[in-house]
């Protein structure tokens, strides 16, 4: 679906991410791993076409950067972290906004019955239908993120990009969000690329991993094949020892 070759990008000056090559297949859940400052979010934003980049970047055989914003909005969506809403849109209005790239451009164009049906399905699918008339400013962080997930689904994209979508969420919502995204990705012609703050959560979502170290890919492949020694070197922490200690703490607490 998505193909990048020797993709480099940055914010002017030295590139932050250098010569990344990857392909994303339908059904794939790719997680970009790396410590702070390794270029995870930069790479993610470059892959959405939002951040200018050099090298090849193709979506279904077309240069992604040549697509119009609306064309891009029909094929790609992004879910990032948002803890508070500034304006009191209702849940329904917010989710219907996901249909924007599909709506006509005519003056006073309104959402079609199809747009409304899709928004309704997405709300019902995430158990949000009873909340549809509530202002999003009144929702908790977890509920708000679920509404934004519904909006992302309503965009009916092929690829969903995830920019640390579980930050500041309670554990319950973190797990729920990851499960909902996993089952969405199982649908036909869909894939996801994500960046997660939590290593454990990242590995529970990923089936493939791209490990970044100072802007360069040091591992690309299945999540299962990731070498823990390499992970420890890149993160400058003994990751397996930390995970073991964490498990032991739990076993003591759990009794």
């Amino acid at each position, binding site marked *: 679906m998505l193909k990048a070759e020797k993709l480099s990008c940055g914010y002017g000056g030295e590139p932050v991410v250098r010569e990344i090559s990857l392909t994303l297949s339908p059904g794939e859940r790719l997680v970009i791993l790396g410590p702070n400052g390794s270029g995870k979010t930069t790479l993610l934003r470059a892959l*959405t076409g939002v951040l200018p980049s050099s090298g090849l970047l193709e979506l279904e055989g077309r240069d992604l950067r040549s697509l119009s914003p*609306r064309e*891009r909005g029909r094929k790609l969506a992004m879910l*990032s972290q*948002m803890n508070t809403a500034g*304006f009191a849109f*209702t849940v329904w209005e917010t989710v219907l*906004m996901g249909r924007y790239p599909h*709506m006509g451009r005519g003056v006073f164009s309104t959402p079609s019955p199809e747009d409304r049906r899709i928004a309704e399905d997405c709300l019902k699918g995430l158990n949000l239908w009873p909340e549809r*008339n509530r202002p999003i400013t009144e929702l908790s962080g977890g509920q708000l993120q679920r509404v934004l997930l519904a909006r992302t689904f309503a965009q009916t994209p092929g690829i969903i990009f995830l920019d640390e979508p579980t930050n500041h969420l309670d554990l319950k919502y973190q797990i729920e969000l990851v499960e909902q995204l996993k089952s969405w990705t199982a649908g036909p012609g869909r894939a996801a690329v994500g960046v997660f703050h939590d290593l454990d959560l990242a590995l529970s979502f990923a089936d493939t991993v791209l490990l970044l170290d100072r802007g360069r890919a040091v591992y690309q492949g299945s999540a299962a094949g990731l070498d823990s020694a390499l992970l420890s070197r890149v993160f400058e922490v003994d990751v397996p020892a930390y995970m073991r200690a964490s498990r032991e703490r739990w076993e003591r607490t759990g009794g």
Partner: protein
Amino acid sequence: MRKAGGSFLALGLFTLAALLLSVGLGSVSLSPGSILTALLGGGDEGTRALVLGLRLPRVTLAFLTGAALSAGGTVMQSALENPLASPFGLGVSAGAGLGASAVMVLGVSGALGAVALPAAGFAGGLGTVLLALALARAFDARLSGVTVVLTGMVLSLFFSAILDLMAAMNPDYAQRIGLWQMGSFAAKGWQGVWVLLPVLLLCLGVFLSRARELDLLSFGDEQAQTMGLDPRRARRFFIALVAVLTGAAVAFSGIIGFVDLVAPHVARRLFGASHRRTLPAAALLGGSFMVLCDLASRTLAAPREIPVGAVTALLGAPFFMLIFFKRKGAAGC
């Protein structure tokens, strides 16, 4: 709380009542019946002259100005994703004040003066916003809301300083410059109405037709962008149009603050955040508010007039505080 369900029928009736009250009250009080008779060309000549020649143009201009400033404020707040943004904060007022003062000090008078003053006010307001946009773009290629707000603020303060300097260097004009900056709808005739009405209708129409883009922009650039909008382009377009609209509004009446900031917040509270509802609601609310402020300005201390800008600010400033502290409180819990 359920969906904000403000009724447009109630708002329409409130607007009509504000207009009737304002046309009816003054040195001579008129009943709604005699106003209607005068509007239809009946009644005595004195009442007709009072209604059609004096009060109606004044009330209409006040309504249109309030509506234009409020619609402009609503768009600005969403386009800059900042609930405290306003056209005046972006330099419309300082620029318009500078333009108008230049005309006063240069002493353009007579028939030319009647056109030159509003024209210079308009050009000054529009020019300042466009300059703020160009500068913001030079500093920040992404043209983020914060950069635009900061650039506008700095430019606004800079032009205000020049304005003060101008008033200090030309003491003969200082009072006139000061009064223009406080705004007034006295003795403006129909001229302002005929210019402002089409500009307002056109701008409102464009804003409404692109209301969905404003909805998206309220969520910030990154989200707007991934939903299929070019936020930089949309923001530039909206700000430029707001500058035209509010420039035209202040050109005839002078600077009248706070309506542009306050009306959008009240409209959102009553009618929700969706711009298809907020925009017309803010325009009607702001228009009515301005009409009532103007009524207060000419009746409270009659026969003296209190500058209408002072009335709106007296009511607007506490309201602004209320919003500010409420936000703080909300963030704390």
